[in-house]
């Protein structure tokens, strides 16, 4: 993202420059001459107007010297070499000749060696190149590599000043190395806006890696005819070293106070990474061989930078991968769900992108760690990203997208977000606080180029212009962004695996439940029958044999009672297991009427007892009436049972309504229980009293709990030995029907 400089200004500036036809200027710089030859016949198709002046003859000349050049061109065109590089000895002059193929013909450039530049021989270049390689290899960091390059470049070219610019994501260039003899001002550390180099120039710089402007005051020399006879188009000079440059650029040079310039492209990973740019106050013609050496130097430097950045990135990547492995291991070892596990390991989570805060939004819930924006702000951002279908999002200025983020810029100015669900606004966020920085611009970049009467004018001032940058964090590096997106796929795998495991578990549970159902169905038929038979036949026998003595009658009764009890146990168990499966029929339930009917049902058990009832007016509940009847039946039955030893039993039913849930309490003054064992109250077959004292199957409270749980409620018991017991169950106003058995739910 651009720094504080208005994007719109830069866009506008770039657009005006972008319309410059820089590849087809229709002219060349006059320090050399150019001709275009037909690749078959070698007849001349186009030429620069200065051709005869530079070369001494016209392109169709039949002089022996020119014939010799033509023969050399002919050999080259039949060979494989991309470029022609030779010398032509014309009468009275030695010319350097270069040539390249183009769809419009063979483009041949001829250039006299500069008078101002020392003749630079290849013999002198190689030792220098070896020295350069040695220096950049031993350079400890990028700055040192760059410094070695500018120093060598100045030594071989004789420019006053060599700058090395590195471009950022937005195309702004910063001078990271400079070698200067003091004639021209220093630009070390200054930043040049992207608009200084329009996009089509950047494209060209990627393809043709060196250009020289020998004199910023030159008069362009036109090409005749202006349109190629081959395709009727202006001659494409993209790869010609003599290409005439944009008048805007020449004005820019003059504004900068430079009479000549040369720049070499640094292309890293296929992108224009930077430029080495040389300037001299006066016009300066760099020898073609020196230029070739500089181009090689640029290529070596590009490779070196590429290697350096790769090594840096991969060690960074390795470090962050290490963090990710640790984090994933911590999550795998955790028995919590992944959101909890992540927050639990929040240090690692933040280290993953070198953030200072993190947040996880899942299921409209949020968990935060470190320094983050407020909860609601994060939720809003998640919703916005989801609405825009953003799977990943990175910014070093939240307030640029969310203006109200300015309020918490000190806590979070930058954000990295990754989506972790396709169907919900679930995101993982990293945050970085604001880092206030000063950017040293070369000239005020917010001042657009002035549009003069005839054409645009580049900016006039290159003076230091300091800008304070606020509401920005340190930018997220590619490696940090990659780390986040890499982690995203790990998490998605984890969620996917979790879902698979869950599905498998559900499947297993469903199978188990079906078996259980079949089992209980057959029990309900087959296990009950024998008990019925025992009871039946014992009764028949006792009816028939009136003569049985008391002892025999007692035995028969015992047989009958035991079988009876066992049968009830089976019934209770079946009832309990059915409860897990039966579906709830939730309706408003009149609890007063329900309690009354239960009391009527239990009347036989009150025979001969003195029970004082205290029953509040009970608020209406939402639930399954049949099941809630069973709850009260069990609780009241217990209350009656455990007060049997009291001469005067007191049983109360009260209710409390807190808006969300209604709590009903059944309390008695019976034998109570020890709170130490309260956790056993609601287990199946758990008894706190002997069956002799108080008969029962030990299922009643388990049943009650299961019913209450299925209504989404809670139940608890309070008691003390010999001091009564109270059971409170609460039902939500709007019951969430929770299936009790894992199976069908």
């Amino acid at each position, binding site marked *: 993202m651009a720094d504080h400089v208005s994007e719109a200004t830069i866009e506008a500036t770039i657009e005006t420059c972008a319309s410059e036809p820089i590849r087809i200027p229709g002219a060349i710089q006059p320090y050399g001459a150019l001709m275009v030859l037909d690749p078959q016949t070698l007849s001349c198709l186009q030429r620069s107007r200065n051709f005869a002046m530079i070369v001494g003859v016209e392109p169709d000349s039949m002089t022996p010297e020119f014939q010799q050049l033509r023969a050399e061109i002919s050999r080259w065109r039949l060979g494989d070499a991309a470029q022609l590089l030779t010398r032509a000895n014309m009468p009275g002059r030695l010319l350097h000749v270069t040539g390249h193929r183009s769809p419009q013909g063979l483009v041949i450039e001829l250039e006299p060696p500069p008078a101002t530049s020392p003749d630079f021989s290849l013999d002198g270049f190689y030792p220098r190149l070896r020295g350069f390689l040695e220096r950049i290899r031993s350079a400890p960091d990028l700055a040192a590599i760059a410094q070695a390059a500018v120093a060598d470049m100045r030594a071989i070219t004789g420019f006053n000043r060599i700058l090395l610019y590195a471009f950022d994501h937005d195309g702004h260039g910063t001078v990271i190395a400079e070698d200067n003899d003091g004639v021209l001002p220093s630009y070390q550390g200054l930043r040049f806006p992207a608009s200084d180099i329009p996009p089509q120039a950047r494209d060209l710089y990627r393809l043709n890696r060196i250009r020289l402007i020998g004199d910023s005051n030159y008069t362009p020399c036109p090409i005749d005819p202006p349109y190629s006879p081959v395709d009727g188009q202006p001659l494409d000079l993209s790869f010609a070293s003599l290409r005439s440059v944009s008048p805007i650029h020449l004005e820019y040079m003059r504004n900068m106070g430079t009479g000549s310039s040369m720049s070499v492209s640094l292309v890293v990973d296929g992108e224009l990474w930077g430029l080495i740019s040389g300037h001299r106050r006066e016009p300066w013609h760099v020898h073609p061989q020196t230029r070739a050496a500089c181009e090689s130097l640029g290529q070596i430097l590009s490779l070196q930078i590429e290697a350096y950045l790769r090594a840096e990135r991969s060690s960074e990547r390795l470090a962050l991968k290490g963090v990710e492995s640790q984090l994933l291991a911590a999550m795998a070892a955790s028995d919590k769900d992944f959101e909890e596990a992540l927050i639990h390991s929040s240090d690692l989570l933040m280290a993953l992108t070198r953030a200072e805060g993190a947040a996880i939004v899942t299921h409209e819930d949020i968990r935060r760690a470190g320094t983050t924006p407020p909860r609601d702000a994060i939720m809003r951002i998640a919703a916005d990203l989801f609405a825009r279908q953003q799977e990943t999002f990175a910014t070093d200025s939240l307030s640029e997208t969310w203006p109200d983020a300015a309020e918490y810029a000190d806590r979070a100015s930058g954000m990295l977000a990754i989506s972790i669900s396709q169907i919900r606004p679930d995101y993982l966020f990293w945050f970085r606080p604001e880092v206030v920085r000063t950017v040293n611009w070369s000239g005020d970049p917010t001042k657009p180029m002035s549009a003069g009467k005839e054409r645009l004018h580049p900016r006039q001032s290159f003076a230091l212009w300091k800008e304070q940058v606020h509401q920005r964090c340190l930018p997220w590096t590619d490696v940090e962004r990659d780390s986040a997106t890499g982690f995203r796929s790990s998490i998605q795998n984890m969620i996917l695996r979790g879902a698979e495991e869950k599905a498998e578990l559900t499947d297993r549970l469903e199978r188990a439940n079906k078996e259980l159902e079949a089992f209980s169905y057959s029990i309900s*038929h087959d296990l*009950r029958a024998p008990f*019925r038979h025992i009871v*039946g036949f014992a009764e*028949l026998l006792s009816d028939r044999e009136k003569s049985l003595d008391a002892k025999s009658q007692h035995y028969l009764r015992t047989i009958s009672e035991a079988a*009876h009890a066992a049968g009830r146990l089976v*019934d209770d168990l*079946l009832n309990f297991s059915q409860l897990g499966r039966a579906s709830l029929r939730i309706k408003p339930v009149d609890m007063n009427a329900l309690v009354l009917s239960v009391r009527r049902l239990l009347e036989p058990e009150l025979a001969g007892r003195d029970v004082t009832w205290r029953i509040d007016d009970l608020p209406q509940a939402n639930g399954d009436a049949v099941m809630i009847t069973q709850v009260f039946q069990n609780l009241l039955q217990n209350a009656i049972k455990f007060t049997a030893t009291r001469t005067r039993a007191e049983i109360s039913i009260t209710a409390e309504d807190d808006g969300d849930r209604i709590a009903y309490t059944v309390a008695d003054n019976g034998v109570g229980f020890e709170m130490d064992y309260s956790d056993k109250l609601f287990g199946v077959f758990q008894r706190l009293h002997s069956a002799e004292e108080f008969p029962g199957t030990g299922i009643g409270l388990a049943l009650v709990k299961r019913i209450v749980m299925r209504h989404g409620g809670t139940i608890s018991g309070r008691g003390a030995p010999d001091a009564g017991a109270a059971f409170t169950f609460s039902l939500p106003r709007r019951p969430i029907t929770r299936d009790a058995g894992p199976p069908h739910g």
Partner: protein
Amino acid sequence: MADLRPILLVEDNPRDLELTLAALAKCQLANEIVVARDGAEALDYLYRRGQHAARPPGDPAVVLLDLKLPKVDGLQVLEKVKTDSEQRQIPVVMLTSSREERDLLRSYELGVNAFVVKPVDFNAFFEAIQDLGMFWAILNEPPPGGRANA
């Protein structure tokens, strides 16, 4: 006016059969008790075929039908009877050990006249059988135009 048509008891379990017969005997009903030991035999009786081909015509006063039966089970017998326009008016009482809701629901869907879960408690069982016997054999008038009256 007592209806002296027979009672058809369909029960495979010999002990349940004996207990049920003992209970019915206590009611001192004059009705003949016909016993079928599985669903197939019950249908043979109702449709006067197989071993019951020679029985005198007329529908039973009531069918006491166990749910779990060999060969053709109780629900199938019930379905057959209640989907046959000739048989539909015969009262069928389902007797079962099962408290399974689905059995109950299915029976009512098929048009059962009563559904009794055999209680473990012998006296309760006794009373249930007696009530059933009394109600269906004595008190329950067959619908007018029923075949018994024809």
